[in-house]
């Protein structure tokens, strides 16, 4: 999936995450902040990277401002930001495919 513009998904509410995906300059560059980064930082990073990998995002700058989101929320926000950044219209979202 090619990142064409800046895509944002999520909020700054408690138990949510704000995900911003921008065009990269080779590879995935992740910046993650979270009140529970000490407890779940490594795990959250792998969830984010696996989600991007599943969507085929190979080249992006990804900023995640987490507010204590669970894995399901985090995945959904990364997916939302990625599709917006790739300028996918609703018909192009692979429901039941990469998005499960």
């Amino acid at each position, binding site marked *: 999936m090619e990142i064409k513009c800046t895509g944002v998904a999520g909020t700054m509410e*408690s*138990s949510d995450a704000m995900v911003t995906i921008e065009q990269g300059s080779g590879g995935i560059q992740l910046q993650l902040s979270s*009140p*529970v*980064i*000490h*407890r*779940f*930082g*490594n*795990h959250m*990073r792998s969830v984010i990277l696996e989600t991007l990998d599943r969507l085929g995002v190979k080249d992006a700058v990804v900023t995640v401002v987490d*507010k*204590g*989101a*669970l*894995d399901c929320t985090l995945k959904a926000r990364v997916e939302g930001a990625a599709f917006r950044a790739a300028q996918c219209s609703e018909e192009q979202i692979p429901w039941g495919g990469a998005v499960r």
Partner: protein
Amino acid sequence: MINAVGRDIPEEVMKATGRDIFRGSLYHDNREYTKAAPTVRAKIDPTRSKLVGSIREALNRCGAHDGMTISFHHHFREGDYVVNMVMEEIHNMGLRNIRICASSLGKAHDPIVPYIEDGTITSILSSGVRGKIGEAISNGKLRDIAVMYSHGGRVRCIEEGRVHIDIAFIGAPTADECGNLRPNGGKSNCGVLSYAYADAQYADHVVAVTDCLVPFPNIPASISMVNVDYVCTVDAIGDPAKIATGAAKPTTDQRKLLMAKYCTDFVVATPYFKEGFIYQTGVGGASIASTIYLAEVMRQRNIRMGLGLGGIATPMVRLLEEGLIGKLVDTQDFDLGAVESVGSNPNHIEITGSEYANPMNKGAYVNQLDFVILAALEVDIHFNCNVITDSTGLITGAQGGHPDTAAGAKCTIVITPLLQGRSPAVCADVTTVTTPGESVDVVVTEYGLAVNPLRPDLMEAARSCGVPIYTIEELKDMAYAIVGTPEPIQFGDRIVGIVEARDGSIIDVVRQIKEFEFAD
């Protein structure tokens, strides 16, 4: 050395702080000791005035010097001006290596952080440290290891002579020129001066700071003139709006209401819920809601509370006025309703910090508690509680009376949601132990309750109360099933604080915080 809650306390910390490891709540029962005594100056000349015109003059007259220990109380809560104005003057005098012995420090004291950074303040003892002082200590900016003690532990610490106070600064809503101090009748009323009694009795020099000088005699006095050297008048000792706020609205948070309901259902099923029971609760949403539910059952069954103890807020005052409580015995007032009540209702009584919770006197009020309802940031499968460090390891809270009341009460109930955001509040091992699990009997969450296996007698009450029952391990597993298994917080090596158990031993240490680093 490994202590009684399984924490490894480095020997160099024991040496640097002169303290033993925690060996169990009753380890020092019956221990004989000699109390410390202050060095005082006689005031024989009746014509010599105690009035001084400024904090600077008071400091000079008391012989303020490098390395001295000064003390403060926290009855003005987030509205306090006294700590900042005294520390600013000490800083302006160029004094260094000052030790602060406070009953607590909060966000109101953020302005003294630069004095920690420049070496004016090098040592702090406090129930806890919120706000920027907590951040400064957690970042290793204080020279000495900070000591966090409970309210009862602080009195013990002073009475044993573990800390000797050179000058006590006692903010007083009203004072007469002889130094009789009252917590009411002025511009900045705080209701009680409970935590300042020990300071008045054990400090070499005692300075009253007031913004309302009244004619002699200002009685009945909380602090008597026999212990006060100087009376200093200033424009304002605090911000009345932040000292005593309006009563908090009862919570509408369904999770808190459910926990409160479960808590009350359990309380009324125990054999301790009977005419004349003795009770303490906090001022959090779930605690107040559980008091309101409890009052309904008290009315239905015609059971009255003999005594309500501790920090007081309006809901308890209303029950006193309704006749559902016999006496309120008060060490701190959280809102205007409580301040007004203790100043006017003869059944609402101020007691000293020692009477409240000191483990080393001849018996404190906490020992008479049937129930205490507490909160916690974390509780683990050993029932140990953490009330001072957050999910990043930062010092953000205070012990208060948590370990004192937990140790004293026949039935100690900790209310906590299973999860605080993504942090499991019920966990395998708390980050910092502030209250030992041996003192905690029941944990109530929104999913159900767990009874400490040390208390099989309470298990019977739990079975009959209709609340879902789990083991503490099951509650922990439910939390981890939702959020995952947390990794331990990454700390720096330096130890920046100790958590003192009630008896003065070390129950845990707090390390310097550090930036999180990914595993690879």
